[in-house]
């Protein structure tokens, strides 16, 4: 603990004494993270869009008007035995017709003149949420379609599946960008810390000569690297928050009118925590590489 508070104090004064070099490195880190976070922001919003749609997806099974009691109960058993089905509601022919007329009340005259009810009765199935529920729906739909007494099945928005594939790809892409970024970050930090080490070369040599523990020598530099990366990452989150607020003001209304129940959202907390943790890790590793290399080979 004493080691760390001392390391923190020294790191702070090191940063203060080479503020220009540190500023360049912090800004580079900030820009790099901002780019990653911009992707993350887009990704998070697309993701939540899909999730919202996903929740609205239901499987509608239209029944033959002539469906037998036996066929209908076979059907209901089949549905009850499917673990993915969360809730089922039965909409009778009469109910469907009333709903329909309510929706198109301005055309009531025409509809009433029709003289008979053209709509089928239906079962509406809600599926419990899971990552592969769209596949489950698809599969179950095929099974149900083949049953006696089923006129047709419908599960809207099958293109969501394609969109989800795209999102899976985007997730991989983000991981790759994130990985590259971490590598870049490690290089930047290790370079900045190298400068800091060389500007204190004599002091480090002397400490080693006088019998300082290796950790005692290393920690101020590790701390310096971690601080720089952390500050860069925090600043980038600030930048992206501003971008987010701007986007919200500009686009929330038009988005909300396009898709009901959609709000432009910020990067989830978990991502932000990963980013901060990633910055600390790369700050640590970058400085670790430099100080270790120095102590091993260039001390003497």
């Amino acid at each position: 603990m004493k080691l760390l508070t001392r390391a923190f104090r020294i790191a702070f004064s090191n940063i203060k004494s080479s503020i220009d070099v540190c500023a360049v490195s912090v800004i580079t880190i900030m820009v790099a993270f901002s780019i990653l976070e911009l992707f993350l922001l887009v990704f998070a919003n697309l993701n939540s869009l899909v999730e919202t749609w996903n929740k609205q997806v239901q499987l509608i099974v239209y029944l033959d008007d002539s469906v037998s009691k036996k066929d209908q109960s076979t059907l209901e058993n089949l549905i009850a035995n499917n673990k993915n089905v969360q809730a089922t509601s039965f909409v009778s022919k009469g109910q469907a017709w009333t709903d329909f007329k309510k929706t198109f009340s301005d055309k009531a005259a025409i509809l009433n003149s029709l003289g008979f009810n053209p709509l089928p009765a239906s079962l509406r199935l809600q599926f419990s949420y899971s990552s592969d529920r769209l596949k489950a729906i698809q599969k179950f739909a095929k099974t149900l379609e083949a049953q006696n007494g089923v006129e047709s099945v419908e599960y809207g928005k099958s293109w969501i599946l394609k969109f989800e594939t795209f999102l899976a790809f985007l997730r991989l892409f983000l991981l790759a960008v994130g990985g590259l970024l971490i590598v870049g970050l490690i290089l930047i930090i290790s370079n900045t810390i190298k400068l800091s080490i060389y500007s204190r070369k004599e002091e480090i040599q002397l400490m080693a000569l006088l019998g300082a523990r290796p950790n005692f020598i290393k920690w101020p530099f590790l701390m310096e690297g971690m601080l720089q990366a952390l500050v860069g990452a925090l600043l980038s989150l600030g930048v992206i928050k501003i971008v987010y607020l701007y986007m919200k003001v500009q686009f929330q209304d038009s988005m909300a009118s396009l898709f009901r129940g959609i709000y432009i959202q910020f990067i989830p907390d978990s991502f932000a925590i990963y980013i901060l943790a990633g910055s600390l890790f790369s700050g640590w590793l970058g400085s670790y590489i430099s100080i270790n290399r120095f102590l091993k080979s260039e001390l003497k």
Partner: protein
Amino acid sequence: MIQIFNLYKTYKGNTQALIDISLEIKSGEFVFLTGQSGAGKSTLLKILYSWENFDKGQILINGINIAKIREDNQYTLRRKIGVVFQDYRLLPRKTVFENISFAQEAVESPSERIRFKTWEALKKVGLTQKKDSFPLQLAGGEQQRVAIARALVNSPEILLADEPTGNLDPEIALEILKLFEHANSQGVTVIFATHSAEMLKARDYRVINLGKGRLISTK
């Protein structure tokens, strides 16, 4: 006690710096290490405080085989050894007082003791009035006093001096020698490297004489 058995050291580029050196230095002894420039004096001292490694042979310091000490633990050896250089190696941006405190901070001495021990060390070398000066404001002999105070402040068992008087006038050199002798009188083993004939003549200590990496004589 320092025991050296058949020590060989070759630098990269094939300079044979030390060839088959065997010798023994007792605890509390004062020895001169001499030989012309390039004879291997500095190399031998560096090996003793694990600043350089060696190729062959064995070194025991108080019975501990120093080649067996892991790199991470070399600091334990260095804490037993104080080192003084010809060029002092003081930190120019720290005051005299801070330079001596620095040595104690490096070994994580309790901070309550640092001021007191720094003061004591300054008293020992007669530099209390200069405590707030910067090294470059001091004369060479004074800078060397600071370096000696720094080497002694952590109470080492062994004091290694690599031509500590090489840059100093003869009278001042003698004053510096007396500081080492004072430490020696307190029980510190001193190895004093020098190629100055006057220094050797001034005192009657054992002389270890190196020539081109070989041990020529130890009397």
